[in-house]
């Protein structure tokens, strides 16, 4: 992961694309920096693939433009075409052998045959598909086809690699293998990558920065760490694991903190909202700390439990009383549904649950650090950032 800002290699400005009445992409600005892996993350139909085609200059935007190394228009397009490669979600292969397909881009660029064969052989070795070189493309499995597609792109030694959900149609094992191969291949070549994915793990595991996209708009672009710690809206918070929300009204503000009335109780949370504004507080169930009156257990989802003799000396700003209404065991973890001033959900380790002897009807104290709660104005969809 790199935090140092690098100069943009590819820049899309004021990009807008519509299909009929549907706005597919409406983004003020997006940059791909030299050597970084930028993941565009969002649900199906968010406009990610359209954005990829616009940035790869394979499709013309209705408004705005794309610059590659400061060049736009036909000059920029020509330069990008020579310097980039694309792996589509369902790559098209010409009815021929794997060798023909992998070497096709080199042939189109006029690379001599001997050099082309060397490069094809090298990249296929790297991706463990050398045994497939003589096979007809119709004989490939889904995973093999994606590897061949990746090989066909990597053999070009691209400065910019566009990957459109390369693991979307694969089973779990093939997905993990290909993800590792992508990371290894990309990192060893210092290629800039624009990756489209709707797989949270993929985006946050592979990317230097993640661009959150929804309804064709860029919600937030940040490093995975910053997205996790400072999500700008409920959607991003949910993506980073803060999948539950508590509605409330802002009763006080102080710097980056807000005080929110949630109906009979008050919570302190990170966020910026005006007094009296309706907000939603997003939290991760594993961030809630549960305690009996004489003890404290915090589940971290890793099978560990912190113990403290009492709740007195804790830094947690938020404490609520709640009654357990449901307990669900999930392997080594236990998910608890509780009713306090609002309904709450927590995940603790099995050991922690046993020590607390939690069962439906048990009375607990639920605590949360203010920095673990994120308040967002209700109905907020975010704005372009980064």
């Amino acid at each position, binding site marked *: 992961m790199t935090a140092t800002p690098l100069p943009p290699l590819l820049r899309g400005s004021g990009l807008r694309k519509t299909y009929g009445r549907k706005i597919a992409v409406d983004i003020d600005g997006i940059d791909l920096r030299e050597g970084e892996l930028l993941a565009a993350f969002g649900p199906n139909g968010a406009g990610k693939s359209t954005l990829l*085609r616009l940035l*790869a200059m*394979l499709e013309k935007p209705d408004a705005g433009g794309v610059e590659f190394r400061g060049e736009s228009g036909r000059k920029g397009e020509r330069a990008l*075409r*020579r310097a980039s*490669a*694309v792996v*589509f979600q*369902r*790559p*098209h292969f*010409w*009815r021929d052998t794997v060798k023909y397909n992998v070497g*096709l*881009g080199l042939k*189109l*660029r006029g690379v001599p045959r001997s050099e082309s064969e060397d490069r094809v052989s090298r990249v296929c070795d790297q991706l463990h598909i050398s045994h497939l070189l003589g096979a*007809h*493309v*119709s*004989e490939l499995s889904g995973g093999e086809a994606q590897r061949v597609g990746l090989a*066909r792109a990597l053999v*070009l030694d691209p400065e910019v690699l*566009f990957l459109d959900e390369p693991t979307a149609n694969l089973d779990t094992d093939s997905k993990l293998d290909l993800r590792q191969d992508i990371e290894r291949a990309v990192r060893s070549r210092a290629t800039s990558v624009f990756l489209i994915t709707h797989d949270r793990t993929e985006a946050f595991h592979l990317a230097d920065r993640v661009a959150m996209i929804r309804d064709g708009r860029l919600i937030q672009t940040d490093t995975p760490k910053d997205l996790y710690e400072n999500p700008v809206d409920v959607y991003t918070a949910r993506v980073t694991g803060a999948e539950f929300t508590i509605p409330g009204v802002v009763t006080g503000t102080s710097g980056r903190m807000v005080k929110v009335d949630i109906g009979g109780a008050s919570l302190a949370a990170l966020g910026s909202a005006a007094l009296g504004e309706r907000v939603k507080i997003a939290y991760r169930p594993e961030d809630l700390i549960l305690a009996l009156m004489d003890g404290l257990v915090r589940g971290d989802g890793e099978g560990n439990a912190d113990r403290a003799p009492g709740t007195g000396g804790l830094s947690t700003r938020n404490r609520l009383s709640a009654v357990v209404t449901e307990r669900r065991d999930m392997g080594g973890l236990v998910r608890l549904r509780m009713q306090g001033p609002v309904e709450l959900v927590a995940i603790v380790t099995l050991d922690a649950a046993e020590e607390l002897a939690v069962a439906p009807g048990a009375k607990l104290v639920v605590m949360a650090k203010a920095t673990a709660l994120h308040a967002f104005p209700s109905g907020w969809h975010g704005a372009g950032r980064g």
Partner: protein
Amino acid sequence: MKKLPRRNRFGPVDPLLEALRLLTSGDLYVWNVILRSLRISGSALVVAIIIGLPVGLAVGLARFRFRLPVVAFVNAGLALPPVVVGLAAFLLLSRAGPLGDLRLLYTPAAMIGAQAVIAGPYIAAVSLAAAQGIPADVALQARALGASRWQTILLRLREIRTSLVAAVAAGFGAIVSEVGAVMIVGGNILDETRVMTTAIVLETRRGNFEVAIAMGIVLMLIALCVNAVLLLFARRSFTRASAA
């Protein structure tokens, strides 16, 4: 004029054996007619390819206004009756016709023209249908690989090369076995415009069944070859599609 053997009475096997003898002994009359047929139909095929293939591919690949009526027009060519094509060519090329001054009537050139008009729509319609069936992602993938505009077109056509061979084979099959148009515009003149189909009609009327059968055998062999080519390509496509 070559003197042809005549028989008034024959058994059922005699003409067939005689036909095979004519073919294997290299009978000049029979082989001249066969070679002239192949020459005329081959030339017509080349003309039909030069005109039909670009038209079919252009209409199939391009997106333009009023494309649908153009597609309908090209496809309508498939239903063109050869004898009507012959009649139209005759009226155009006859002395009183608009192209009468060219003096092409009853020449191989007129036959080539008529056959090209018959084969052209076959080739255009089949290649049009094939081009329409090329998935949109082929062009996108080609461009993503760095293909120029022409390279993209060639890569798209590469995907339908078997269909294009089938289109040409179908066009050839349609004209080499055609009799109406070539009879009208060629006139079935010995050593000039007599081809297999017109010779079969003539020799059957004359009672020279062995000659007619010899040419019929060659026509059948050509038809078999054309169908074998079509079947081979269709099977290859089917096998690959099934494997995919």
